[in-house]
């Protein structure tokens, strides 16, 4: 049957070897490419590992101040154990999450694309604290973190360039630079303040992390 063009055993073997060689080459290139590109999820999980470790290392009643770098335009959010609207990823525990920015639905963003860690606390509050330069004596973040439920801190606002900026905001947003968080652990509660120089989406609207609740 050896007609011209027929595939025979004589020329099939080199063909098979060539195909296998191409597969290996593509695999090799793929591995190299994977290794040299930045894996964003690794950075996020690394940030969560760092926070989790530092929270664990704090003594009860102690305040810790830590530099931290998060991915630009990602939220740092926290939910208490029985808080409604928390992502399903948190299961039945309180949790800390880092999630892509989604002003319409921060909680949904965490569920679909975010990274979360369960914490062993009953109450978890994670807030953005707007630090106003030259007003440090009026507004003391160390005082606030130990008295976080005091309503007076939630109505305090500042006007700047025709926009109203709130002292505390529910959706801390990373700006990609090295930032600071203040962490306070007391009994079964955890409070975390991310210190900001400005609210990146200031103005009249405030971020609410549980939009659908």
């Amino acid at each position: 049957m050896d007609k011209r063009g027929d595939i025979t055993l004589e020329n099939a073997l080199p063909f098979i070897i060539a195909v296998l060689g191409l597969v290996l080459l593509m695999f090799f290139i793929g591995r190299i490419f994977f290794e040299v590109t930045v894996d964003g999820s690794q950075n996020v999980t690394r940030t969560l590992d760092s926070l989790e470790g530092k929270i664990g290392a704090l003594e009860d009643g102690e305040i810790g101040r830590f530099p931290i770098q998060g991915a630009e335009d990602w939220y740092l959010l926290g939910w208490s154990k029985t808080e409604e609207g928390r992502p399903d990823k948190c299961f039945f525990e309180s949790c800390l999450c880092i999630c892509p920015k989604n002003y319409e639905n921060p909680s949904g963003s965490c569920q679909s694309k975010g990274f979360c860690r369960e914490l062993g606390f009953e109450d978890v509050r994670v807030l953005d604290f707007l630090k106003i330069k030259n007003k440090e004596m009026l507004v003391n973040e160390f005082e606030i973190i130990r008295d976080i439920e005091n309503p007076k801190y939630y109505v305090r606002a500042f006007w700047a360039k025709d926009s109203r900026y709130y002292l505390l905001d529910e959706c801390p947003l990373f700006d990609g630079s090295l930032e600071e968080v203040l962490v306070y652990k007391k009994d079964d509660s955890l409070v975390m303040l991310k210190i900001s120089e400005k609210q990146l989406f200031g103005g009249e609207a405030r971020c609410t992390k549980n939009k659908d609740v």
Partner: protein
Amino acid sequence: MKRGEISSSYLIGIILAVMGFLVVLGFLYGFDFLGFSEEEACRLSVLTRATSPELAQSAVPLKCETKKICLTARGGGDCSQNLAGENPEVIKLSGDDIAKEIAKVSADEMLNCWKLMGEGRLDLFGKFSDKVGLTTAQPACVICSRIAVDESVSKDVLERVDINRYMRENEVKGSGRNYIYAFTSGGVVSYASRDLVTESAFKEFSDDGENRAKDVDGNEIVIRGDKENRELAIVFTQFIPPDTGEVLDNMLKFGGTVAGATFLSPAGGPVARFIVANPGTSALAAIAVAVVGGGYGYYNSYQGQLAAAGYCGKFTSNREDAEGCSMVQGINYRAEDINALCPQIQGRL
């Protein structure tokens, strides 16, 4: 042979080809491309970025991860106050002179960072300066390492750590020459003498006090991370001043050590706290290492005056006019201090 029959030689050939494929695939799959060490991956990415065509440069990320090192006394902890959750390399200090050991680790990390970044001669952020909106002389940085000292090392020991002196008096392992020689590519082996007249003319703005927070009743609040600084960041920066020659001239004018295109900032005294580069004026050009709030803690009692090593001149780059300054230094690992120097941080913290 009958039609359709496979001869034994072909059969063996196919089997060998498939087996060889599986062996090579298994090798490639199991090969740890990055434990061809993270340092090698960083070095490769630095070289790739610097030598990439201008248009491609911004697409090459720096795969440089900040190294975390914990220095602890025998029987001590693992620097949980600074590095909890970050899996640091723990180095147990066991010699007779712990302060010297700390200085050695710090000096080695500084030199290692300098070498890793191409001794300041590679153009790492050139095209990025447009992309990220950096203005002239605004630096971009890589934090090469963070060195934390565990609480088991006493404050008294920390206060005796003198990295500047260590770099002058000790040889780089295997080189037969001191660190100053290594940083200046053989230009000099010692720092320039301190000039008290120069120092007195230079305004001191830092605050030596510790940053102590108080509550509304005036009672001091104990805050971990503020009471005493036990963490040094080794930071590589690169910036583009209007005139690189002017930076070197100013460095010399204010007591720094200059050898060709390399320099060491003043080692000791108030001038040591400033690195000088300012856009647009013919006078001082300055990027100040801001000492914000608490000043330097115990680890930095000498490090507040730690010399920075640098280079100003032409960069290796695909851009024709690539020129600027690079620098490596150790500063407090605090957001305020780092951000004062680095509007842009690259690599992975």
